[in-house]
């Protein structure tokens, strides 16, 4: 059985500088054999959408630690839609209070991985969802 090729965009949205978690997740994805485009810090919604389109990724993943996930995702959603990226898997992880999960889900984020999520859970979820 050949392993499917999965390409992930992992972005740090907004001004948040806490990238320890994002880099750990990036390494876990690389270890799982995924191709990972890690953006680095300070990505605007426009930059995330543009990179996702240009890189033709299967997964668009955000790592947010500083609380601005909802305003960011509200701006990102129409941009991803406009670029025809609704068939991609949208994920978000980080410091995401339970009270915001429903809103993130309604914005189109299929995978929500708050602090405390296991690395393998993230990897397995991506493998299951990307067909």
């Amino acid at each position, binding site marked *: 059985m050949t392993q499917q090729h999965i390409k992930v965009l992992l972005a740090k949205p907004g*001004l948040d*500088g806490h*990238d*320890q978690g994002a880099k750990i997740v*990036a*390494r876990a994805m690389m270890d799982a054999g995924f191709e990972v485009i890690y953006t680095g810090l300070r990505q*605007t919604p426009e930059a995330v959408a543009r990179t996702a389109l240009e890189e033709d990724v299967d997964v668009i993943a955000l790592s947010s630690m*500083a609380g601005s996930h909802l305003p960011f995702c509200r701006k990102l959603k129409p941009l991803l839609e406009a670029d025809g990226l609704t068939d991609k898997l949208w994920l978000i992880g980080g410091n995401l209070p339970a009270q915001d999960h429903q809103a993130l889900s309604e914005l189109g984020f299929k995978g929500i991985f708050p602090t*405390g999520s296991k*690395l393998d859970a993230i990897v397995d979820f991506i493998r299951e969802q990307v067909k």
Partner: protein
Amino acid sequence: MNDRAKPGVKPEVQPVVNESGIAVKPLYTAEDVETSGGDKMVGLPGEYPFTRGIHRLMYRKQPWTMRQYAGFGNPSETNQRFKYLISNGQTGLNVAFDLPTQIGLDSDDPLAEGEIGRVGMSVDTLRDFELAFEGIDLDRITVSLTINGAAAILIAMYLAMAEKRGYDVNKLRGTAQNDILKEFIGRGTWIFPVEPSIRLVGDTIEYCARHAPKYSPVSVCGYHIRESGATPAQEMAYAFCIAKAYADEVTRRGLPVDEFAGRLSYNFNIFGNIFEQVCKFRAGRSLWAKIMKEEYGAEQPGSMWLRMIAAGGGGGLTFEQPELNIVRGAYYALISALSGTQTMALCSYDEAYTIPTEYSARISLRTMQILIEEMGLTETVDPLAGSYYVETMTNQMRDKMVEIMAETDAQGGIVKLVSEGVIQAKVSAQAYRMQRDIESGAFPKVGVNRYRNDSDEEHPVEFHPYREEDARRQVDNLNRVRAERDAREVARCLAQVGADARSGANLMPAIVAAVKAYASVGEITRELVAVFGRYREPIRF
């Protein structure tokens, strides 16, 4: 005695190696102290090499300063939290700024939308500092500014605010974090490329040495490097490499070491093994003294002092069963006290989730107060000295730090390694391995991989509310200041900032003049970016 297992013979106990990579024995004797280097570096508190403390009487004379990190929303809201903490016995302030302020954006910048006042206090102009510190006696309460990329501007603002209120800047105490090299490794609030960033740190040190000689313009942070995945020995070794880079920048300009080194300070992290932590601080104190004396020719004892805030770090706290973080915090505070810190702070138990409530911040404060009032920790200086284990481990931790510093220099030095993302990749790889070890249970964490409460859905955490109307009010305030200030004076001051950035002059006089004219953080930053450009993050795994 050889404590390593002989081939084919099952050891009586499992080998233990601490995070810094040093083997830990079941028993230590005088022989271990001898073979690790003896007791020649122990000395007495208040005397070179200061292993046992930088002051002779330490807490017997004055307990550590308690300085919880605080700030959110607009300056008036933060002022209320400051007053709450002070009324509860806090003896210093540590100001948290929001991300737009930290990276030099005004509140009306489109990139600041949704981020104003979210993780700290929002500051646009001097007016905000006037509001934030209103009614606070700056002689009695020292203020630490957790600001890095925009530090030169915010230090200028603090000095200008104090001067306006009638304080003598020559006598003003206080601290700014202003450690940009560690921002490139972790925390990420950089603005300018590496070289001009170091120049700005040099400008602040030089300016303060001449105009605000009691002010500590830099607090070199091992703390965030540790949070990013460094071991305790790396945390301190990299911090020393960074401090040396700043000292080199200033001595290159001709400032004698004894005119600035006494105002360099440090910020370190506490979590993990108690003895490894205490020995890290004892070892680091003597190593820094030795570096300043032997490499820089410092003569004043103050120039050799490792003055520090040693703070219970977020890296040790857990999202799971957050109330256990109260207990962890108490142990971290104990370690800090046993380590001879000058200033203490604790991440609060809910800090993995949100900005601490008044309630949780008060618990952290009371934790430190219990140590002072009830536990006898202020009575005797460096009480662990003379323990075979502690003295051996102190020697071994010092050797480990020396080894890491030598390796860093051999690879081209900290500035080069940070610029290329090498240190970042190294600590991040370690953080990944640690996370795997925590998830597998190889590295024990109570509540996470041991003794989980999977059925317990109730987290006793109250989320700090984010109010959009506060952000709008901050923008309104900025617009009001812009309408009221002397626009021609602002333009003149900003032009001077740009001119000095180009000429290579010390930027602080021009920045101080600009903030006094109520130029904003964003406006001054734009002038600097026009000359310096912006940092481009090296992505390296």
